[in-house]
C-alpha cells in the first residue's frame, strides 16, 4: 500500500485499525454477516445474537462515512462506489435487526425463556442486552393491554393466560451444505416409529428438511438456509407426543414435554395425548405416564371441551354482569 497517496490512506487506515486487535478482516466480517443475515431471515425461530459483528460493521460504516464527507470531489466514481457499498451494508445490518425484532414481537416470552435457558447452559447469548430489554418491555406492555381490556373482568382464578408456545421443531427449511465433511443428520422415519433415517450431508447438496434436525449445524455455520417451508404434523394432524403416549414410552413423553410439546394437542381423531395413554394399544394404560400427564395439566378430549365451554360461559356471564353494573 502506498503510504503517500493521501486518499488511499484515508480509506485503508480504518481497515488497518481493525486488523490490529483482531485477525478477522472486515471482508471476512461482511461475508459472515451476509450469511448470518440469510440464516436469520429463513430460520423459523430466533438464532443466537451476532451483535458483535453488527457493531464492527457499524463502526466501519461510521468511519467510512466520515472519510467520504471529508473528500472534496463528491462526484468521483470511487466516492459513489464507496457510498453504494455503505448503503448495501447498512441494508444488511438493519434488515437483520428488523427481522429479529419481528421474531421477538411474535412471542417475547418464548424469546426470554430460551435466552435464559441458553445462559444457564453456558451457550452463546440468544438476545443482545438491548433486545432483552425490548422483549421484556414488549411482554409487559402486552400483559398490561390484556389486563386492561379483558382480564380485569374475569374471575381471579382465570386471570392467568397460558403463554402460547410456538413450536418450531417441525417447521421445514431448505438448507444448502457449504462445507466438506459435515456429519450425517438423522431424521425420524415416518413409516416406523422407532427408526431413524440417516441422511448424508454432501457438499453443495440442497435439502428440504425439518429445522430441528439441522439447528445444531446452523450454529456451527456449516449450512445456510435458503428458505423455510411448512410445519407438519402426521397425516392425522397428531403430534409426536401422541405417538409417544400411544406407544407407552415414558422417556419419550418426558423429553417431548421438556422440549415444549403441546400437552393438550388435538388432531383429526379428536384425542389428546392423555386419551392416547388411556386407550393405549399395548394393553393396560401406563399408570406412571397418566399420573405425570395429569400432574402437568393434561386433560382428556372430553375434559378439554367441557373446560373450554365452561370458561367461555363464565366469561360471558361475568362480562354481562360487569356491563350491567356499569350502566
Amino acid at each position, binding site marked *: 500500500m502506498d503510504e503517500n497517496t493521501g486518499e488511499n490512506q484515508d480509506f485503508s487506515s480504518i481497515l488497518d485499525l481493525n486488523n490490529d486487535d483482531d485477525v478477522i478482516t472486515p471482508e471476512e466480517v461482511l461475508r459472515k454477516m*451476509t450469511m448470518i443475515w440469510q440464516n436469520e431471515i429463513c430460520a423459523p425461530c430466533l438464532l443466537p445474537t451476532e451483535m458483535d459483528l453488527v457493531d464492527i460493521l457499524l463502526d466501519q460504516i461510521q468511519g467510512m462515512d466520515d472519510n467520504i464527507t471529508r473528500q472534496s470531489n463528491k462526484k468521483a466514481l470511487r466516492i459513489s462506489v464507496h457510498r453504494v457499498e455503505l448503503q448495501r451494508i447498512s441494508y444488511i445490518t438493519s434488515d437483520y435487526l428488523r427481522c429479529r425484532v419481528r421474531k421477538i414481537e411474535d412471542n417475547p416470552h418464548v424469546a426470554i425463556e430460551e435466552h435464559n435457558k441458553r445462559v444457564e447452559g453456558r451457550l452463546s447469548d440468544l438476545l443482545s442486552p438491548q433486545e432483552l430489554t425490548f422483549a421484556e418491555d414488549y411482554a409487559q406492555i402486552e400483559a398490561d393491554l390484556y389486563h386492561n381490556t379483558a382480564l380485569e373482568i374475569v374471575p381471579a382464578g382465570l386471570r392467568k393466560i397460558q403463554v402460547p408456545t410456538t413450536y418450531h421443531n417441525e417447521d421445514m427449511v431448505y438448507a444448502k451444505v457449504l462445507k466438506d465433511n459435515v456429519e450425517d443428520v438423522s*431424521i425420524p422415519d415416518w413409516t416406523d416409529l422407532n427408526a431413524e*433415517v440417516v441422511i448424508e450431508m454432501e457438499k453443495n447438496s440442497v435439502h428440504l428438511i425439518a429445522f430441528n434436525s439441522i439447528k445444531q449445524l446452523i450454529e456451527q455455520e456449516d449450512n445456510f438456509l435458503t428458505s*423455510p417451508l411448512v410445519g407438519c404434523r402426521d397425516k392425522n394432524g397428531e403430534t409426536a407426543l401422541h405417538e409417544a403416549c400411544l406407544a407407552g414410552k415414558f422417556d419419550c413423553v418426558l423429553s417431548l414435554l421438556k422440549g415444549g410439546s403441546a400437552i393438550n394437542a388435538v388432531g383429526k381423531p379428536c384425542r389428546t395425548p392423555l386419551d392416547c395413554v388411556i386407550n393405549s394399544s399395548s394393553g393396560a394404560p401406563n399408570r406412571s405416564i397418566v399420573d405425570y400427564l395429569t400432574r402437568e395439566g393434561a386433560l382428556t378430549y372430553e375434559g378439554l371441551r367441557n373446560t373450554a365451554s365452561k370458561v367461555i360461559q363464565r366469561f360471558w356471564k361475568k362480562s354481562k354482569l360487569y356491563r350491567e353494573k356499569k350502566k
Partner: protein
Amino acid sequence: MNAEKCEFLAGNEPIEVIPSISDDKPMHLISGDIGPFEAGVPVRIPIWIALLMKRKHHCKIVMPTWMDVEELKRILTAETECQGLSSLPDYFFEISHMLVRDARDDIFEVEAVKSLVQDIYDRRDAKLRTSAIAFLSQNRTCHAQLDCVQPIEVASARGTLEACKQLGILVRNKHDSTPL
C-alpha cells in the same frame, strides 16, 4: 427471503467488465479491494459495482459465457431431457434478470436471450410444482433433496407451501370446532 433479496445477494457475484476509464489507484472497499482500472483491459468486479459503473457509462459489461443464445439453447434442451433439475450456474436467473434490465446494449440478441431464460425458468418451475404436489400429498418421508435448486425458485416455492400450511391449520381448526 424474497426475489429482491435473492437479487441483492446475486449482486455480490463477480463479473468481467471492460472499463472505459483509467484509474491507477485501487479502491479499498470493505468487501475487498478492486481495481486498478485501465481503459480497455478487462477486470473482474462484483456485479453491483459493474452496474453502477455501467449507469455512469464508465464500462462495458462482458456477458458470462452461459449468456449466449447457443449456450442457452443447449441448457434448455438439457433441462427438457433431464428428469430432475439440471445444474445451472449460481444465481442464473437473478444475474440474467439484472443484466437484461440494466445492460441491454451489451447483450447480443437480447430478446432471444430473454425468451430463452424465460423458457428455462418455466420448465424448471413446472418440474418443481409437480414435485411439490407429490411431496405434500405423501406421508412416508419428511425429507427431500433438491440439489440444483436456485435461490429464486426456493423463494417462489415458499409462498405456495406457506399457504398449504395455513390451509392445513384452517382445516384442522374447522374440524376441532365442529360439534360432534
